[in-house]
């Protein structure tokens, strides 16, 4: 463990004007790129890495961390204002954020997203700084069997999101899982369901599917609904009170448990390699909905829905660095990009990092906290600009959003094929919504499908087909028990109780 002088030297090293400026540039770039559908922090970091060659290690890595943090928050802005998530991580933010904006409270919704994002992010940074080593050891105990149990648990939580028909929800989940099966199968490596399109060997692109189903389907529906009177995209009442434009301390404090739960979910999932922030956001949203006294208000503009998703997806950022810094294992694509940045500067992440580069690591921690502060301050400015933009007529905003989605998905998938996929899934999402099949459940099942199949395949090999071998995996048993209880609670007990009450 590094001693106090190393920590102080690292902090002093971080708090320079140069580092501050790089953090500011990083956060600004991240918020800008994150707000563009289909792009996001991964692409921004990949583009930015070559520009950091000439920099010292700390400003270079602080800049990339700023891009990542800014990008995750940036994705929530269009999700809330025009129901077009800039990144898949922000898809769940749109569920309550956009209805709240349509109620004429876009500033309240986006500010809550900003505050909860910074809160979740800061929570996970503090966990990273204080208990990263023991947490990394615990995360490493999550082998394929435990990951499989975690996936089953995540699927069981879907039961809370199926809406007014359990059968339709299950059909949507089966469809999502089926869509995830496109591409190479994980055990044998044989291609399947690709219909002669080699672009589908890696599966359906997540960005194209998520943006198509959640954003483009809504854009097309809103364009089709425009009548003779062309209104602003978000109608803000002229007599709107000051309380509707801001998040009061009482509102923020009322979301404390939701944000804490989201931050814990994000931190735990972030520390486990390969799970990611999209899963954290959806799981946090589902758990917040089920724990709420008024679950029916979720999806209709409940501010707690925004707080739950943003605190969770942002908490993944800091936690992703736990296995990276302590063990040298990247937990996500962004963490893998950070490893490459470390290596460019001749630094080897891993168990010896704190001993050999203590000053740099504690400097990085200080820079991360600085990036959170900058995210909060710069976010306030960018929210004002965005809130002004959505007062433009819906003809302009939705047409531009559609062009933006086309460009974003074209860039992220590397060609027009991804855009065609996006349009196919936009129509699918539109028809599913019309007939009451949950698009959210589809997306969650689609997102978890690959990881589920891979971990199931590995689990079957490890257990050698004998369920009794599960007894030697106590953590997996706990998770599977939680899954059964959660499916029973969310799928049967809670709905029956609600019906009795009604």
């Amino acid at each position, binding site marked *: 463990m590094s001693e106090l002088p190393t920590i102080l030297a690292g902090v002093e090293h971080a708090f320079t004007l140069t580092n501050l400026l790089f953090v500011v540039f990083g956060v600004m770039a991240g918020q800008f*790129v994150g707000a*563009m559908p289909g*792009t996001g922090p991964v*692409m921004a970091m990949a*583009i930015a890495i070559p520009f950091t060659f000439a920099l010292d290690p700390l400003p270079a890595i602080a800049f990339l961390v700023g891009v990542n943090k800014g990008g995750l928050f940036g994705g929530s802005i269009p999700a809330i204002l025009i129901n077009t998530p800039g990144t898949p991580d922000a898809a769940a933010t749109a569920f309550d954020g956009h209805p709240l904006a349509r109620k004429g409270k876009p500033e309240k919704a986006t500010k809550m997203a900003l505050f909860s994002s910074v809160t979740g992010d800061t929570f996970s940074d503090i966990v990273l700084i204080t208990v990263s080593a023991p947490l990394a050891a615990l995360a490493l105990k999550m082998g394929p069997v435990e990951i499989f149990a975690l996936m089953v648990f995540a699927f069981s939580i879907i039961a809370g999101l199926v809406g*007014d*028909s*359990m*059968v*339709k929800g*299950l*059909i949507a989940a*089966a469809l999502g*899982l*089926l869509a995830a*099966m496109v591409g190479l*199968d994980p*055990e*044998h490596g*044989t*291609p*399947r*369901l690709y*219909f002669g399109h080699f672009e589908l060997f890696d599966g359906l692109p997540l960005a194209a599917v998520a943006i198509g189903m959640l954003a483009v389907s809504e854009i*097309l*529906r809103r*364009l*089709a609904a*425009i*009548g003779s009177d*062309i209104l602003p995209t978000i109608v803000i009442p002229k007599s709107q009170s000051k309380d509707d434009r801001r998040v009061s301390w009482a509102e923020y404090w009322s979301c404390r448990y939701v944000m804490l739960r989201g931050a814990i979910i994000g931190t735990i999932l972030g520390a486990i390699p390969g799970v990611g922030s999209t899963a954290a956001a959806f799981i946090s949203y589902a758990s917040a909905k089920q724990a709420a006294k008024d679950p029916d208000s979720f999806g209709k503009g409940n501010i707690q829905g925004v707080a739950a998703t943003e605190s969770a997806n942002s908490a993944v950022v800091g936690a992703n660095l736990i296995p990276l810094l302590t063990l040298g294992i990247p937990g996500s694509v962004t963490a893998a990009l950070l490893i490459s940045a470390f290596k460019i500067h001749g630094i080897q992440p891993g168990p010896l990092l704190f001993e050999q580069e203590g000053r740099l690591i504690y400097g990085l921690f200080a820079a991360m906290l600085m990036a959170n502060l900058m995210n909060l301050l710069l976010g306030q400015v960018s929210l004002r600009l965005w809130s002004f933009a959505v007062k*433009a*007529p819906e*003809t*302009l905003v939705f*047409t*531009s959003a*559609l*062009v*933006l989605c*086309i*460009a974003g998905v074209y*860039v992220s998938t590397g060609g*027009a094929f991804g*855009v*065609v996929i996006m*349009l196919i899934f936009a*129509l699918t999402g539109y028809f599913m919504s*019309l*007939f*009451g*099949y949950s698009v959210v459940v589809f997306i969650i099942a689609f997102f978890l*499908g690959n990881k589920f*199949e891979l971990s*199931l*395949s590995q689990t*079957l*090999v490890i257990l050698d*087909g004998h369920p009794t071998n599960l007894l030697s995996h106590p953590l997996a048993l706990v998770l599977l028990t939680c899954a059964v209880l959660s499916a029973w609670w969310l799928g049967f007990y809670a709905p029956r109780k609600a*019906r009795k009450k009604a």
Partner: protein
Amino acid sequence: MKTSPPLQSQGSGSFTGKHIVSLNRLSGLFFVLAGLLLYFVIIPAETETVDYGWLRPQTIPNACAMAMTTLGALHALIPTGSISVKLREILKVTFFTAFTLLSLWLMETFGFLLIAPLFAGALMLLVGERRIGWLAGGAIVFPVAIWLAVVPLLERSLP
């Protein structure tokens, strides 16, 4: 099981309460047929037959197809949940999707910078925008701004 709530009339092309149950049943039947088609035709044709290993390539796709068939049949028999179908909106959304696909093909042929402004302008005109200032913003400023942000700034390629 909860029965379908009646839907209020929503103008021309809307379905009313008495049609909802039938539409719900139809959607259930659709998934029965889709599941059967997947199980007997598409999955066998599009998945390699492997006869070893714990989890074969077709295991989960087949399970999904069977789930769709069973649940679809259940839904056709006992329909639940709400539906909000508007024919005019469906036609418009389908048209806009086809128009976007056509524009994508044109972008691939003639370039984003030439076609995106035409696409955005035509779409704005189609949905009823007639104000020159907003048309110019949507058809010229935004597509060009997107191109500038993506191509010179991010150094990525567009069609």
